[in-house]
């Protein structure tokens, strides 16, 4: 019987071998979403290899934990997550199975981008699931405020400089360049959005609080009766009455939601449905962080112009 046990041990040891080598000298970064990947590319430049697990047109709450992601995580030097429990349904078992001690939560190669960001909708009272699929640590769609993009980039710059002190100057220069371009773009976006401050909108999911706050939009209601709960007929009826009463003419919908209910509401209320990109890669034009806002703001201002005549 002992022979068989030693056979088992031998078989286990035989499975041992060389680990896959990491990319030639570059820091291998894996991010949960494409927004974080875009920001990591801005800061890391040619010193990093960046790959995102979720795609920008995918609901980041419900990503399938595919084994192919384990391979990506296995080779990663740095894992950047959105945090605030956005990835709780899929990322933790992938990290456990990655066999990569560098990226375990708490290790040097694990960066929670939300830690330095400004987080909205932090629940203050008791949180229960009667409220739907709420995030007890605050709204995780915080990257949709350009200032949070800046903060995330800064956190990445700090982390990369820690991991590769020799390239710190290069990361700092990249960050400074990104910061300058972002500031210039913010002035432009603020100018374009200025005529529409205070406009009332409805969104499908609570994905846009940071965006709405930054650009002065007033989100009066949601198509989902509660976060993560699909639209119900009674809620939709109430919503349509409310939209007519308040004169809401714009609905924002993420690309991964069914347009049936929003279209029905549009027919009844005359409001417009805008499929906005919530993430880099959400639409084919949104290839980086600045283009994401260019695309969304262009879509919004065009629609506002049509409905308000301003």
């Amino acid at each position, binding site marked *: 019987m002992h022979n068989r046990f030693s056979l088992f041990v031998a078989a*286990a040891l035989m499975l041992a071998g060389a*680990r896959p080598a990491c990319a030639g000298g570059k820091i291998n970064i894996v991010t949960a979403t494409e927004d974080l990947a875009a920001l990591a590319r801005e800061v890391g430049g040619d010193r990093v290899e960046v790959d995102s697990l979720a795609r920008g047109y995918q609901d980041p709450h419900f990503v399938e934990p595919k084994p192919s992601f384990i391979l990506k995580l296995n080779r990663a030097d740095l894992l950047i997550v959105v945090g605030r429990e956005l990835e709780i349904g899929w990322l933790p078992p992938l990290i456990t199975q990655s066999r990569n001690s560098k990226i375990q939560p708490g290790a040097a190669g694990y960066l929670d981008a939300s830690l330095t960001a400004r987080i909205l909708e932090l629940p203050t009272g008791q949180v229960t699931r009667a409220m739907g699929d709420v995030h007890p640590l605050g709204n995780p769609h915080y990257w949709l405020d350009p200032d949070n993009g800046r903060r995330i980039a800064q956190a990445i710059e700090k982390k990369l400089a820690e991991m590769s002190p020799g390239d710190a100057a290069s990361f700092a220069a990249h960050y400074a360049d990104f910061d300058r371009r972002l500031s210039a773009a913010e002035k432009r976006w603020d100018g374009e959005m200025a005529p529409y401050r205070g406009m009332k909108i409805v969104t499908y999911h609570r994905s846009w609080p940071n965006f709405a706050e930054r650009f002065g939009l007033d989100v009066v209601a949601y198509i989902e009766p509660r976060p993560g709960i699909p639209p119900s007929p009674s809620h939709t009826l109430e919503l349509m009455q409310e939209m007519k009463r308040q004169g809401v003419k714009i609905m924002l919908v993420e690309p991964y939601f069914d347009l049936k209910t929003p279209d029905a509401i549009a027919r009844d209320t005359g409001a417009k449905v805008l499929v906005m990109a919530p993430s880099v890669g959400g639409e084919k034009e949104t290839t980086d962080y600045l283009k994401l806002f260019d695309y969304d703001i262009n879509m919004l201002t065009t629609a506002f112009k049509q409905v308000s005549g301003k």
Partner: protein
Amino acid sequence: MPRFMRVMAIGAATVLLAAVPPASAQQAGGTQAGAQAGTQAPPQPAAGQADQSAQALRAELDRLRQEFDAVKQQYADRLAALDAKLTAMEAAKPAPTPAAAPAAPEAPVAPPSAALSKVFNPDIAVIGDFLGAAGHNRVAPTSSALEMHETELSFQAVVDPYARADFFLTLGPDGGINVEEGYLTFTSLPGGFLLKVGKLHSAFGKVNQMHNHVLPWTDRPLMTENLVGGEDGISDAGLSVARLIPNRFMFLEATAEAYRGESAIFHAPSRGDLTYVGHLRGYQDLSEAANVDLGASVAYGHNGFSPDSTTRLIGIDATFRYRPLRMALYHRFLARTELVWSRRSELTGKPESFGAYVSGEYQLAERWFGGVRLDYADRATDPTLTDKGGSVILTYWPSEFSQVRGQLRRTRYAEGVTANEFLFQFLFSIGAHGAHPF
């Protein structure tokens, strides 16, 4: 020597003060008086040198006594100060209110102190599995028409920088508690190993690793019932080592496991008769929406029929998944099959049996799933007896945290009996948001 004694005296004082409650300071004084009396009573030494050394000794003792008193005073002062501080704190604390006070809105990032004390508690969840059955089944009847089939409690947390632990306790319909799984996973081993130690669902095939609440059915396939130990399956105390096999083509993972040898199908007659399980899994993305998942498994161990009789299982599993990313909330398709060959060596012969199922699930809408399953399985001890069956399943998800399922099941048992049943199930979970299995 004197230094040694001083240390001893201070040590003694500390022990005394620690052992004696602060209120009985008088008693401590009393003890000390006794000690004093004792030192004053030694027999008078004769004279000369002896006298001198005795004086030196007495001086040393006096000094020690002073030190002892000083230390005692220090401790008494410190205790008094602490006592005062405690009283002040008690007074300052507001009367406890029945409802938990909400966190102050101006500082929402800092959790309330009550939450801080729970920060290291594991993630806890409870999953209820309520089953109902209607119809007739004379061969394998369920015990009752309605039952709280299983209550699963899960406790999961990171242990230290090197490992995490996962416990799943289940309570059966009659309340008996069972450690369904309880294991430590070493996440940071060198060489790319993933080691699990504890009680585990073995990596044999797909269904054997699934808890009841993640199955797409209310029951388990006939193959599992007849050949792989039924609901409990190969679940045992042991070790599991899994390693990724680097290659350019696909995700490939090899798992080797050794178990104590006591599970629903394996019984070890003696301590050395372990059960061994091996599993090879290959996975490949066909596109961002579609993928295939293939597995081959082997399990070997004693079956307890006689001291030398063994069971060897060989399994193959294949899964195809399709889930378009943009419409991931609304549509998905999964087709799966598992085939198992069982060979038992018994005194009376070597029965070789075969069992398999084919199943498909399709998400019809955001909350609706339809499914079909076809079953075929010989009995493990007599391959001439074959059971066949088929099921149609409809599942409704009110939310991510609850499911209602109905299953129409028709089983043609080897005895020539056909059972038509309607099974229904309510699954509900509260607590920490566990990850969805893949």
